[in-house]
Each structure stands twice: as C-alpha cells, then as structure tokens.
C-alpha cells in the first residue's frame, strides 16, 4: 500500500518545501520509492530545493492537457534511486487545476511509488484544496510562533472536516536557547494547543539555508547536522520505527537549569 501524504501549514515561509525535499530524500535513501508532487502552481520551488530545475521539461499541467505521459513529466533524481519529482507549472495560476484532476494524477502515481508526498502551497484556497484532494494523511509544519500555530490550527480543522484524520506535526526552526529564556513558544505549548501527535522537531540552523540555496537536501550531506538527523528521524518515524526525540535543550543546559528542572521548575 502506498502512502499519500500532504505537507501543509497554512502560513507561508515556515518550511513546507524544505521539509518535503528532505523527507523525500531521506525516505528514498532508506530504500523506498518516493514521488514528490509540487502542488504550488504558479510559485513552484520544490525543483529548486532539489536542484532539479534545469531538468524540468514537462509539468503536471502538460500531463493534464494530454501533451505528455505522466512518466515523461517525472524528473528522476540522479543522486538517489527511487526519488522522482512531478513539477508544477510556473506560468499558470492555482485556479487552472481542479481537485479531481489533482486526485487523478496522485492516484496514478500511487500505483508506482511507496510514498507520494505533496508539497502544498500556503493559504487555504484553491491550491490547498488541490493539494489535499488525494491525501490520506497530513504532515503539518509549523514554527513556534503564534501566527504560524494559529494558521496550523485552522488547517487542521479543515483537514479534519475533509476526513483526513491521520495528522502529524513537525515543529520547525526551534531555537532551544530562546525557549530556555522563555522568549519562544516551546514544543509543549504548541502541542497543547494543536492537540495532534508530534512526529519531529527540527532546530533552526543556518546550514538549512545553505543547503536550500545549493539545491541539495541537507540529509544528503556527508557530515550530519542536527537538522539533518531530525529530518532522517522523521522519515524513520513515518515508516513506523520508534525513534526517541532529540533533546535540543540538553546543549543549553547549565547546572542551574538542570537543578531547576529536577525540582519541577
């Protein structure tokens, strides 16, 4: 049974596309076949983050228009066997696709791949409707900020109304130091509000930006960084493995905070 997962957030700029590319790469590296679908028609980015921009020939719209076969539009990743990308059209808007069409494409992909990961555009309009049309489960990406969490809450409500109940949360760009100083929402605060299960926490790291600009998913780097480990762990948890959560707070502990925590402070 292949799994169709939509990566969504409501708010823009919280890291949906970064999460999609890294999860796709991590899953493919562990031997799964993965199709990444860019549902952000008109503002496509996923091909950039994967470094596949110059190899895009056809897009999902060409497939829908009957100008090429689905297999022709899929861009294969050279570094990872089993990872393909279905690019979105850049010259059209989100209204040019219907949810039923999107569902048709994704369902067709599901016949050939273990994981279909759909990168959802920001917002809750047509693009969102398209992206979730075929999804059976969802990964919600949020940053520990009030606005991002509020939008995530709205999106979870919409997903639940559509009958997508398998919802997992990724808290992205956590700054443990700031949480320690009570300047940032903690993962616990976010979880308490959203009430969905946590599948991973990714710490804020400049290397994510560097990797993004180079078009190489961070998880493929030789020297493993904390965010890369976090992404790999999320991929393992997706596959049903029990992986303990990284303790980012430990690095910021000193004797005083440790004693405070011991006494439940």
């Amino acid at each position: 049974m292949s799994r169709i997962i939509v990566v969504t957030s409501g708010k823009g700029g919280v890291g949906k596309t970064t999460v999609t590319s890294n999860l796709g790469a991590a899953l493919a590296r562990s031997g799964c076949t993965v199709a990444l679908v860019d549902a952000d028609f008109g503002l496509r980015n996923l091909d950039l983050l994967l470094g596949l921009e110059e190899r895009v020939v056809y897009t999902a719209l060409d497939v829908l228009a009957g100008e090429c076969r689905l297999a022709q539009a899929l861009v294969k990743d050279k570094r990872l066997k089993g990872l393909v990308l279905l690019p979105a059209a850049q010259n059209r808007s989100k209204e040019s696709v219907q949810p039923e069409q999107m569902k048709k494409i994704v369902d067709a992909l599901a016949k050939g791949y273990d994981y279909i990961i759909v990168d959802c555009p920001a917002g809750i309009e047509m693009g969102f409707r398209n992206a979730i049309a075929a999804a059976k489960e969802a990964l919600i990406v949020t940053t520990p900020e009030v606005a991002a969490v509020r939008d995530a809450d709205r999106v979870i409500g919409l997903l639940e109304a559509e009958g997508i109940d398998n919802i997992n949360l990724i808290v992205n760009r956590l700054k443990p130091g700031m949480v320690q100083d009570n300047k940032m929402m903690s993962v616990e605060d976010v979880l308490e509000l959203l009430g969905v299960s946590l599948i991973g926490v990714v710490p804020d790291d400049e290397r994510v930006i560097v990797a993004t600009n180079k078009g190489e998913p961070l998880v493929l780097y030789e020297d493993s960084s904390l965010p890369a480990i976090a992404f790999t762990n999320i991929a393992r948890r997706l596959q049903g493995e029990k992986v303990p959560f990284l303790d980012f707070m430990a690095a910021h502990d000193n004797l005083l905070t440790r004693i405070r925590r011991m006494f439940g402070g």
Partner: protein
Amino acid sequence: MTSESTFSIDITDDSLSPPLVARYSQVLLKSEGEKLLLILPTEQEMKLNLIPWSEVWQELKHHLQGKEQSWQAGSSVSLIARDQLLDARQLHKIAETLSEVELGLEWVYTSRRQTAVAAAAAGYSVEQQSSHPQSLVGVAEETKSLVLEEPLYLQNTIRSGVEVRHRGTIIVLGDVNPGGAAIAAGDIFVWGRLRGIAHAGAQGNRQCRIMALQMEPKQLRIADMVARAPKFLPDHVEPEVAYVTSEGIRLAKAMDFAKTHSYSKEVEGWKDSF
C-alpha cells in the same frame, strides 16, 4: 434585492451590533418523534448573510460529529431543502455524509422542481411543496421564535477559523482555540480550555453564563456586554465562570457559583449573596 450596506468608521459605543447577535447556525438537525429533520437555510438567508456553501457544509459536519449520541443508528432522515437548488451530486454528498454516522436519507422536502426531480431520480421519497417555505412542517416559524433549542453537544475542539453558532446552550468537550468562537443563545460550557471567543446569551439574555475548566479567553461576551480577559493568568488554574454583574462581566470560581450567587432582575445581573 436589499441595498448594499454602508460601513462607517466612527466607533460610538462598545455594545454589540444586532446583526452579530441575530445570526445563527444555518443548519438545523432536530429530532421529531422517530424521524430526524435536517433543515437547510433558504437561498435568501444564505445570500443575506453571505454564507458560502462550504460553510453550510462544515456546519453540517459539526452537527453530525457532535450530536452522535442523540439518535439511534440507522434512523431515517428527512431533508428539508426548502428553496435550495440541489443537484444529484450534492444530494449524494449529503447522503454520504449522513451514512458516515449511520443515518439514512429517506425523504426530501423541497419547493424547487429541479431539486425534486434530482431527488426522485436518486431514489429518495420526495415531497414537493408550495413555493412558500413557511408552511414546511412548521419549522420556519419555530426558528424565528425565542424558544431555545436543545443543547448542542460538541465532542471536538473548536479550532481557529471555526465559529459555532447555536440557538441554545453549547457544550464543548474539548478546547476553544484562539481564533475559534462559540456563540450561543444560552449558556456555554467548555470542558477544556477556552482560549478563543465565547458569546453567551447572544439574543440578549444577561442571565447566561460561560463556564470553562481553564479560562484564558481572548474575549468574553454575554448578551450585549464585552470583556477582555485579564492579561496575566493566575498561577493556579481552576474552573471559572463568567457572569454579568451591574459593573460588567466578572469571573468567579465555578465550584461555588451556584451557592454564592443569585440573579437579580432589578440590576440585570448576578449578585454575590454573601
């Protein structure tokens, strides 16, 4: 049609404007004897309040998820479609949604010929009624009256962007998240954290109360009064109740409220009897 409403920016007072108080849940689900009635808003009601179908849809799902206990599995439902134009696909979707909670769509009452034809073609019993929707099973009159509906029992969290309106008391077995709102003609009970907006007694009844296990609202409204919550939370969280006094909305421990407070008609508010 009605003329476009104008907007003005002069803020004269803090009291709530009537339209906010008057708008109610668009979808009604009520039992009448053995049968369940699912009542849709009229086209005019939807147009006047600028309600999109998607909202009606979400409300229907809320009603079905929340009220699960109050019917027998396998009950038959009569759809009071009034003057709504429904095609075969929409009817099918409604039937499908009902069947998810083990209810069967059986009868369709409508005043539109096209809807009647579509329903008949889909195999439902149809009754086409005169175009005057008021005569429908006496439902229209009832919705206009001030009698409260039976309590709405919700078993999910009211998330951001969701607004639950009910012409009666609302009981939420979950949280009301920031950005979410519960608006009731009666009382509001939140068996969880209240972090959004709650409006009790929305038809003007100051006797109504808002109760929550953890009171951290953005705003509390009772009848025509509005209050913001204190900026700082108490260290010790306990169930609290919000009520109207002569000085505005106040909070008290929920535990003793019934014993220590009584409603006074003269001051139109609750009084501490000790």
